[in-house]
């Protein structure tokens, strides 16, 4: 198979359960882009024992999986991952490199950008190409607006996509792609960051990812006392109380209740977001919910773009009545 300069690349991540869902979704997106541009499509994968993951990526449409498989890469080290990626980018000269907006993805992408002396175009939601011109839509201003940016003669284009901008990846039949081991040249490792330990989250009182109904509170509840209202609604609905990062930061609830990139990923049947504005990091953790109800007094809150039912109202006005009504309904 031919691999030209100008290809589209995806930087993929794996975990104990195989390729991360965001990377599979990104791989589907990369395939589409490569087809539109009429170029080849490769996925770069780093870590240890990657055969299963590499094969999985082929079924998601990669023409080629560039694999750096080495015991040295077992734990993520941004410096090392970025150096390997930069080496193969310089060698093979892709036109696009797409990253998923995770902790590892962003760390790697930003280092790669600096080493290539390029901007990383982050928080992308869409990419349009027409007659060789590229227009990228990216979120700005707390996700309240999308701006179109036009890069001129920037190559490779380094783009990162938050999970909210990606659809669940679709496996295709393998098109006979290849796995190409990439030489992990024993890079002279100047270990600048020494990993001491990985700290597991303390198991809280409850596992919110097991609940069918979650009622989540965000900074919009304003006062700690109002947490009682949200909890009462959760109880009335037969669900569990969850929250956004803000409330954990304030020390109002433990990390075990936190939904989002830095907390838990949940997929309940019903997710009621109370006073949550809808930062992409939070959405990433709850977008898989079957039904989303958003209650917020700010009609501009991005959370409404992800909701099935939107209630623009003050929580203090609606929650008490919702609790009463729900309780009443349960009894009858």
């Amino acid at each position, binding site marked *: 198979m031919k691999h030209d300069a100008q290809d589209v690349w995806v930087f993929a991540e794996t975990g104990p359960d195989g390729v991360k869902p965001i990377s599979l979704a990104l791989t589907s997106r990369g395939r589409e882009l490569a087809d539109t541009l009429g170029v080849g499509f490769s996925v770069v994968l780093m870590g240890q024992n990657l055969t299963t993951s590499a094969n999985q990526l082929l079924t998601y449409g990669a023409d080629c999986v560039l694999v750096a498989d080495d015991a040295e890469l077992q734990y993520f080290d941004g410096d090392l991952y970025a150096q390997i990626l930069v080496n193969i980018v310089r060698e093979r000269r892709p036109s696009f490199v797409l990253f998923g907006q995770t902790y590892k993805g962003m760390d790697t992408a930003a280092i790669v950008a600096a080493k290539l002396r390029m901007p990383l175009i982050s928080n992308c939601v869409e990419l349009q190409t027409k007659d060789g011109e590229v227009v990228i839509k990216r979120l700005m201003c707390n996700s309240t607006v999308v701006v179109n940016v036009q890069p001129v003669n920037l190559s490779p284009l380094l783009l990162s996509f938050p999970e909210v901008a990606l659809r669940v990846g679709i496996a295709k039949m393998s098109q006979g792609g290849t796995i190409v081991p990439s030489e992990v040249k024993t890079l002279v490792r100047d270990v600048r960051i020494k990993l001491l330990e990985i700290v597991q989250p303390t198991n809280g009182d409850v596992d919110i990812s097991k609940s069918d109904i979650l009622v989540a509170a965000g900074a919009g509840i304003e006062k700690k006392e109002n947490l009682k209202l949200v909890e009462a609604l959760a109880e009335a609905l037969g669900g569990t109380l969850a929250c956004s990062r803000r409330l954990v930061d304030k020390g109002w609830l433990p990390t*075990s209740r936190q939904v989002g990139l830095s907390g838990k990923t949940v997929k309940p049947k019903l997710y009621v977001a109370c006073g949550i504005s809808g930062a992409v990091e939070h959405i990433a953790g709850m977008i898989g919910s079957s039904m989303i109800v958003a209650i917020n007094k700010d009609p501009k809150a991005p959370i409404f773009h992800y909701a099935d039912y939107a209630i623009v109202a003050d929580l203090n006005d609606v929650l008490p*009545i*919702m609790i009463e009504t729900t309780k009443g309904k349960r009894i009858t």
Partner: protein
Amino acid sequence: MRIIICVKQALVAYTELKAAEGELHPVDPVNAVNECDLNALEEALLVRNKFGGQVTAVTLGPLTSLDVLIHSLAMGVDRAIRINPEGIPLANPFCVAAALADVIKTLEYDLIFTGVQAVDDMFCQVGIQVAEQLGLPHVFAAMRVEPDPSRQLVTVAKEIGEGLLERVEVQMPAMLTFQSGINQPHYVSVLKKMQARSKAIQTVTLGDTSEMTQFRGKLKIVGISRPKRVRTAQIIGGKPEDIALKLLEKLTEAKVI
């Protein structure tokens, strides 16, 4: 300990946004110190107060961003520098980082602190790009920091997602980019703020460096739109009683309760 804190003025509210001449123009802008930068600033002051030393705040922005430096001085930083944004392509995070790095390399420091991302630009990379351009190691999404000046080391707890933390040890000088909400920035009295207004703020105007000329006009904002709805929400309105009843009806219909 000599700490540099990169702090940014961020647009936190507006009534309308327009795009013109490659930039965003907000109507009725409300600006504030970018939230996680403020947390990073508080952390810098805590470290200085414990180990001694000096904290220097650096911002890149227009004259209105003097406010964030006045706020920083009122909180207790020792020195404040504003980089004049003229000629710097602010829509390009590489250039923003290059400008900051250009000024920081003229200063003395053990640590550089900043927030993970600005809420308005949402670049989420400037700290890392500054570190790389200065040849420094960095820690992304720092939560807690324990410096050990005698060994020129700093131990940092950083977030790696899914509730996990990593504890790492880094040689100084180093860049730490902090998560929001890691501390409670201390209250600044009106009096302190008034006093800070009379303190000196240095302004630096950078020459036309190759980075800036190379990238001028290469990453323009050419349009603006509302974010696309991922799901089309049905609006439930009316009096609170009506809202409660309607929602309950919908939930019962869908058999989620």
